[in-house]
């Protein structure tokens, strides 16, 4: 596991980027573009829309260096920028309705990556997981995804969901309890 190493690398990348190192900028892009793409897919956006939003996000990231001065967690900051951009796109395509961040759907697609398993078994497991997740609300899905899969802090998940940190803790513990109750 190189998780700790990755976290230590980010402040250095950010520092070099702010000093004008363009290699640091492309490193940041290559490091996070897939995770941002996956998050955007989770929020139910089309592939092409998402590609545009990612382009806008990194352009804004590059040109608003001033705003990056106090940034401590690079990954969370990029997630937040992308979500804001996606929400703006969503709003402009739904002009007639009054909408809120909490209106966005959240989809979770499971996949079994092990290559030795039979395709049939693979499909069965994936369906099982989908059924397991079906009982969660969109917000619960997004919260557990950000917390456990993307490993963001409760405070950061809360900001992305426009909620307070205690409310997110409650939301997640309810989600886990619900899945557990369903299993037995």
């Amino acid at each position, binding site marked *: 596991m190189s998780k700790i190493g990755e976290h230590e690398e980010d402040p250095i990348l950010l520092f070099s980027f702010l000093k004008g190192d363009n290699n640091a900028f492309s490193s940041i892009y290559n490091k996070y573009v897939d995770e941002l793409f996956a998050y955007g*897919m989770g929020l139910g956006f089309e592939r092409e829309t998402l590609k545009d939003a990612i382009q806008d996000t990194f352009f804004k990231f590059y040109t608003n260096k001033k705003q990056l001065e106090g940034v401590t967690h690079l990954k969370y900051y990029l997630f937040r920028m992308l979500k804001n951009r996606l929400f703006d796109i969503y709003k402009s395509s739904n002009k007639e309705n009054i909408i809120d961040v909490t209106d966005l759907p959240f989809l979770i697609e499971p*996949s079994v990556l092990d290559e030795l398993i039979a395709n049939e*078994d693979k499909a069965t497991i994936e369906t099982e997981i989908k059924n397991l997740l079906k009982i969660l609300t969109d917000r619960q899905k997004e919260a557990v995804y950000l917390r456990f899969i993307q490993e963001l802090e409760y405070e950061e998940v809360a900001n992305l969901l426009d909620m307070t940190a205690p409310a997110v803790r409650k939301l997640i513990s309810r989600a886990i309890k619900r899945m557990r109750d369903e299993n037995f």
Partner: protein
Amino acid sequence: MLSNQWLQNKSFIQWRLFPSEEDNLYWEKFIQDNPHFQNEIRILKSIKLNTQKLSPEEKQEIFAFIQKDIEKRDKQRRFRIYLTVSAVACIALLLVLLQPLFIGKNEIPHENMLVVADTTSVNQKDIQLVLANNRTITFEEDADIKYDKKGGITANTGVEQIKVSKEATKETSLNTLIVPKGKRSSLTLADGSKVWVNSGSTLKFPSTFKADKREIWVDGEIYIEVEKNKTHPFYVNTSHMVINVVGTQFNVTAYDEDTDYSVVLVEGCVDVSIDKEKARLLPNQMLSVSTDQISVKKIDVNNYISWKEGYLQFTSEPLSNILKRLSRYYDTPIDCDSSIAQLKCNGKLVLFDNIEDVMKTIYNTIPIKYSHEADRILVRKK
């Protein structure tokens, strides 16, 4: 039908995906105690959520688009900077052109505004440029002085122009520009860097810079736009600080007589050294030292550099600080009643030709009154 029922163990799957602390103990022990489930555990551990990825081609394409956007912006930006600079140049020119008109109204025009004199017979009220060979040139009016690459000097007061060809002295020996209270000057150094020198300041600089580094010495307040040159670092020295620059615009306030001093960065990047401490400043930051406490904070740069454009701008600035600056600018002592010294002021104050007009503006906007007493101005609560 699944070949192995255990692969459907939902609680194990749930723990794999969303591990809660209470489940950790149970499943970690389970894995240890059940080595025969090894294969199943490996398979379930490989479950990932939302693994959608962009193709390498798509990633490259998006990155190329981002770079194109950045290039486009940089081009527009260069254009914008060019526009602002020329706008400033126009304003400066206008002032220079109008100046003789104002002077003409109030006093008899001087025939020779520029006097070449010995250091001994210098009027303390005049701007003095002391050359490396100790020859002194004085200006009665605010001057714009230019050193060319070879060390030749051109000075302009708006009334007359003076040219001094290169002096037969060592190239790097120091010149001194003394700008007394009530006067301002601007100076272009041999490398093309431009310095605005505020009232009551002294600047020491060489006619041409050394081969390895560019260095100037300041007592007072300057605003400087340093020409970019990575191979020749630029240093601004004050009695307490050394500021190391690559190419940038910033303001330094460091009067020897004051215990407080500061550096404000407009653009670029500078390193400030104070004794053994070192700090890096980013644009829109101010480093200030007050009673030996060093602090760096975010500020509106206009509040600190507007003096070079002929006005002062404040955001909740104590009245006493504003009066102190005016006193220096117009060379008139101003006493302020302690009950209003801390009054916070906002807004812009145009630096008119005489202090009376400035005091009137203040009188009309905040609850104070003022009176003249001998050569001093007294400011009290209304």
